[in-house]
């Protein structure tokens, strides 16, 4: 239990998806113009990460890893399918995103309206794929840890995008050099936020 909480907190602050690994940067920069839409994207990322990462965890441990297929028959114990992981992970993510989109549309039209176009876009968000690939590297001992890592990373992304959107809303009134306006100053803002988050890296949990 303790482990799960510490993974959760660590993945929000210390190993923040955006600031420590630059994952999900494209949509992070493109959608952070105002707080409302970035709220939608942030929640959608938490949601999809929380579903796809545990599924990929099960796939990794019961299908892909060396010896993972031993539960079917002992003769398969030497099989190593990990070279298939990219294709399987991305197929799972794309399929789940499509599925989630349909379910949300049916069950909660208001949530669907607020997530809007972001759901389909999330299939190609690097934060989702990156989460699965990091999961593969870190070798969590059980699915609980993997899920808490997924939710923590999602919340980290959500925090980061809301923070940037709030700053950009204020910045609309500032007088920036013409050549830096828009994209350039956004990069510098993100850099300053990343430096602030670096102060968490000494955190011992």
């Amino acid at each position: 239990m303790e482990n799960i909480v510490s993974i959760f907190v660590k993945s929000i602050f210390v190993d923040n998806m955006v600031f420590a690994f630059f994952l999900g940067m494209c949509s992070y920069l493109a959608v952070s113009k105002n707080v409302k839409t970035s709220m939608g994207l942030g929640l959608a990322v938490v949601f999809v990460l929380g579903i796809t990462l545990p599924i990929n965890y099960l796939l990794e441990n019961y299908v892909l890893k060396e010896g993972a297929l031993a539960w079917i028959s002992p003769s398969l114990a030497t099989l190593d399918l990990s070279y298939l992981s990219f294709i399987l992970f991305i197929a799972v993510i794309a399929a789940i995103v499509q599925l989630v989109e349909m379910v949300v549309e049916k069950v909660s039209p208001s949530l669907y309206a607020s997530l809007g176009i972001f759901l389909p876009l999330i299939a190609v968000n690097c934060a989702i794929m990156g989460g699965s690939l990091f999961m593969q590297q870190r070798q969590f001992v059980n699915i609980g840890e993997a899920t808490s890592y997924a939710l923590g990373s999602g919340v980290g992304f959500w925090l980061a995008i809301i923070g940037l959107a709030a700053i950009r809303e204020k910045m609309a009134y500032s007088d920036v050099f013409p050549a830096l306006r828009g994209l350039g100053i956004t990069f510098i803002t993100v850099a300053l936020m990343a430096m602030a988050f670096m102060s968490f890296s000494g955190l011992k949990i």
Partner: protein
Amino acid sequence: MSKLFSDKTKEVFLGPLSKNNPIAVQVLGICSALAVTAKLEPAIVMGLSVTIILAFSNVIISLLRNTIPNRIRIIVQLVVVAALVTVVSEILKAFAYDVSVQLSVYIGLIITNCILMGRLEAFAMSNRPWESFIDGLGNGLGYAWILVVVAFFRELLGAGTLFGLQIIPQSFYEAGYVNNGLMVMPPMALILVAVIIWVHRSINKELQEK
């Protein structure tokens, strides 16, 4: 030859190198651009991998463009890209193991690199294979040169080396010169890209935002 390099293909090739650069103008593929640039060698390998994958996936999607049903095109594109990325990743593991360890998950993340999806959607789905190939090469190289510039400054100022060889002479260190530790940290990559955008937009005034 004149038909191979008509004015249009020349523009398709040269545009992404500057006026329509994937990183500085289209804002695609930032994630990996920032993460792999602490050293020059992985940056070059990454740039080349993306260029190759982009060129070939553009050709494949362009060949398939009339047979892909519109509703499932994203999954088809992802699978084509994922297959190519797997090939490149296995080749790197076999022939350049050290670099592939340094690049870690970022090779796999080429799949979700927005440059790929962006170019496949915007170009390969509506153009012939040869032009798509050129477009892929142009965009890949446009991406690669920014990576190389950022990595050059980060490695030179952050570690005093290039390709792992010491460039800044020992006498400098004895005279009190210190490597800039901030340069190897993630935030400096963002600031260097911001500076590149700044310079780029000061030269090409029509790109400035209001």
